[in-house]
């Protein structure tokens, strides 16, 4: 067959195949969006997501890559030009993809979608799909490329260079704030998952000696054999899960490991301080290896489980809580669904990874599309799995697990009566049977999303692997997986924040910047741990469960960082004379500004005490004065102040960015990009 005819046939087949994807995607999205009154199968969500990601990657990302960013495969990347065998290193694109995905995938895409499921499965699903394709993937992709073109510079450095000192300072302050709020919320999720759960507390306690053992094994017995020791650690963790069952059934042991929320909070604060001050090789690195090992395996297993078992979603498309009266967190779909789900749709935190290790490993500019855009799509797929895990439960059970006692009542009878009165029938016997099946004393008021995700995951797996008899093991495996994830974020986050504070303090007193000087290590570790510990304690003592106040605060902070990242990206696009295409970053930026500023307004000024921090403080002032009242009032005012300060800072970045755009577009200022000079690649095609 002549080559011309063969090419035409290939082109026709390709067009037909993509038309089929469009059609299938449209049908699946239609079913997900329009079906009402009867449960739908989870496969519809999987098909809709797969088609959206495929189309977004094939068409939208290639449009951005070719027409806007003009990716240049001949331009040498910093990995090639500055290769030193340490930070800068030409690496295979799939390896960079895996590395990048392992760094961006944390507990966020699992927890946020579970919490947002209180609105029904539809709002979260639509935001995760549209947010990822048009905002999150774009942010990660463009920031990665811009960092590659600037020798792997960080977001804060790029903000300082492209927007000005205000941009750099705000990015720095936003990162510190997000880290502190994130760590407080993350620790609270662990506390809520482990309180009064001897099985869970024992398993997680055991991961600490296991990590220490791994550290010593790596250092003394088999130096450098990380995969081997991670496998060994995984086996030991499985044994710890199995041992946890024995602990929970032994009255004496169960009493030791049945811990209250305040006790767990204190233990986690002490652990955070120790992890920050101990050598990296002893605790942080082995725990990170173990967590990554479990994370990658579990995500893959969950994905396969959902596709093979294709469970039915029992949660309706919309619940009555779209009106803002939800028990999990208060507030309407707009803006609260969009700050509750961050990591699965768009997360400012990702811009730190995209301008951190990853740009120093990229062999070719053209690979930034697959790594930046592609890895975020994979993260979004994890969020879809979390939505499915939350929505396979009967809604009554979902609300009984996720609603705080302050909303539904302390006694089981009161809780089930309240939840049933909302139209989601559940009985105390159902809850007791479920708690028994998963090996817990109770599942009421387990706010934070982790226990609900664990129940959903255990239900999915118990329908095939091991049946109902293994449900308790699956539940505790999922709890261990999430807690391990979160404690790793806690270790790493505390240390990263400590280094940032030390870098800043070095300007005041030089020895404070020395990362090996113990007085500085102890002082800065104590400062960081005390900061997130304060938020954790606030959450533990909050009668509304803490998540209601703190998760939105974290979501706002995270999305505000994304706002800064998109300001940087838009500024660079305009400087690249791509103003006519600036909408690719400007539209997500405008959306995020609308979402975060509206959410911040509500969180500070809304007259309803369950939403507005100041209204809550006023309600507490007007109510009967009890012991913790004064502290609760102060906490609410502090949360309002933190939100206000963040918004004002990001507002300054927006004004500064807009001023730059206008000056450049009106010709008052020269559009000069601060890229590294072009150097021709020496890598052969296909290398790297």
């Amino acid at each position, binding site marked *: 067959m002549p080559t011309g005819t063969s090419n035409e046939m290939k082109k026709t087949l390709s067009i037909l195949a993509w038309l089929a994807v469009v059609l299938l995607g449209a049908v699946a999205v239609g079913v997900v969006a329009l079906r009402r009154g009867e449960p739908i199968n989870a496969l519809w969500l999987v098909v809709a997501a797969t088609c959206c990601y495929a189309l977004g990657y094939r068409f939208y990302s290639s449009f951005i890559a070719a027409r806007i960013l003009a990716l240049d495969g001949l331009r040498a990347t910093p990995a090639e030009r500055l290769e030193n065998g340490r930070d800068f290193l030409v690496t295979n694109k799939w*390896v960079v993809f895996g590395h990048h995905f392992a760094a961006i995938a944390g507990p966020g895409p699992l927890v946020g979608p579970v919490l947002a499921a209180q609105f029904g499965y539809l709002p979260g699903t639509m935001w995760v799909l549209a947010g990822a394709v048009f905002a999150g993937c774009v942010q990660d992709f463009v920031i990665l490329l811009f960092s590659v073109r600037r020798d792997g510079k960080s977001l804060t450095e790029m903000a300082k260079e492209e927007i000005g000192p205000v941009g750099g300072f705000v990015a720095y302050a936003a990162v510190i704030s997000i880290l502190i709020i994130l760590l407080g919320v993350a620790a609270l999720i662990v506390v809520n998952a482990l309180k009064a759960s001897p099985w869970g507390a024992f398993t997680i306690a055991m991961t600490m000696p296991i990590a220490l053992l791994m550290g010593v094994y790596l250092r003394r017995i088999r130096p450098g054999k*990380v995969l081997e020791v991670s496998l060994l650690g995984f086996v030991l963790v499985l044994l710890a899960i199995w041992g946890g069952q024995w602990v929970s059934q032994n009255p004496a042991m169960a009493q030791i490991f049945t811990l209250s929320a305040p006790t767990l909070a204190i233990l986690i604060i002490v652990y955070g301080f120790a992890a920050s001050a101990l*050598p990296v090789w002893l605790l942080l690195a082995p725990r990170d*290896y173990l967590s990554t090992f479990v994370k990658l395996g579990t995500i893959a297993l969950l994905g396969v489980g959902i596709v093979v078992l294709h469970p039915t979603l029992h949660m309706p498309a919309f619940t009555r809580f779209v009106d803002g009266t939800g028990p999990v967190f208060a507030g309407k779909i707009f803006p609260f669904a969009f700050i509750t789900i961050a990591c699965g749709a768009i997360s400012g935190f990702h811009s730190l990874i995209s301008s951190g290790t990853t740009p120093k490993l990229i062999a070719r500019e053209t690979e930034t599309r697959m790594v930046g855009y592609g890895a975020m799509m994979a993260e979004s797929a994890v969020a879809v799995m979390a939505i499915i895990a939350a929505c396979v439960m009967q809604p009554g059970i979902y609300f009984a697990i996720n609603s705080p006692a302050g909303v539904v009542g302390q006694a089981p009878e009161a809780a089930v009566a309240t939840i049933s009165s909302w139209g989601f029938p559940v009985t105390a016997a159902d809850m007791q049977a479920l708690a028994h099946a998963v090996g817990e004393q109770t599942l009421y008021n387990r706010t934070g999303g982790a226990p609900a995700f664990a129940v959903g995951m255990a239900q999915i797996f118990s329908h095939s692997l091991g049946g109902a008899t293994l449900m308790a093991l699956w539940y505790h495996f999922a709890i261990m997986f999430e807690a391990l994830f979160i404690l790793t974020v806690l270790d790493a986050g505390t240390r990263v924040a400590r280094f940032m504070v030390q870098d800043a303090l070095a300007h005041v007193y030089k020895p404070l910047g020395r990362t090996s000087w113990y007085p500085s290590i102890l002082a800065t570790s104590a400062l960081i741990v005390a900061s997130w510990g304060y938020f954790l304690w606030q959450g533990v003592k909050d009668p509304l469960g803490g998540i209601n106040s703190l998760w939105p605060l974290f979501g706002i902070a995270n999305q505000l960082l994304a706002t800064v990242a998109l300001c940087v990206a838009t500024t660079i696009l305009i400087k690249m004379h791509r103003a006519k295409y600036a909408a690719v970053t400007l539209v997500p930026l405008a959306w995020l500004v609308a979402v975060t500023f509206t959410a911040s307004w509500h969180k500070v000024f809304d007259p309803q005490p369950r939403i507005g921090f100041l209204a809550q403080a006023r309600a507490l002032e007007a109510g009967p004065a009890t012991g913790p009242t004064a502290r609760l009032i102060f906490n609410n005012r502090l949360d309002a102040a933190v939100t206000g300060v963040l918004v004002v800072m990001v507002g300054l970045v927006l004004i500064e960015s807009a001023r730059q755009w206008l000056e450049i577009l009106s010709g008052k200022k020269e559009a000069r990009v601060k890229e590294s000079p072009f150097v021709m690649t020496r890598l052969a095609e296909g290398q790297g």
Partner: protein
Amino acid sequence: MKQLFHAARILLATLREIFDEAAYSRFLARAQMTPSREAYTAFWREREKACARRPRCC
């Protein structure tokens, strides 16, 4: 079959990179050392700062 082996090799390389085994191999080659406790201690001395500054996302 060839493609399967290629995919397995890439997967192993990815895992070795994620789990710092590849970084250790590069360190050994660069420092002209053989695997030992001392070499691994030296590797961590060099790596500690970079590793501790690596954020893990939420």
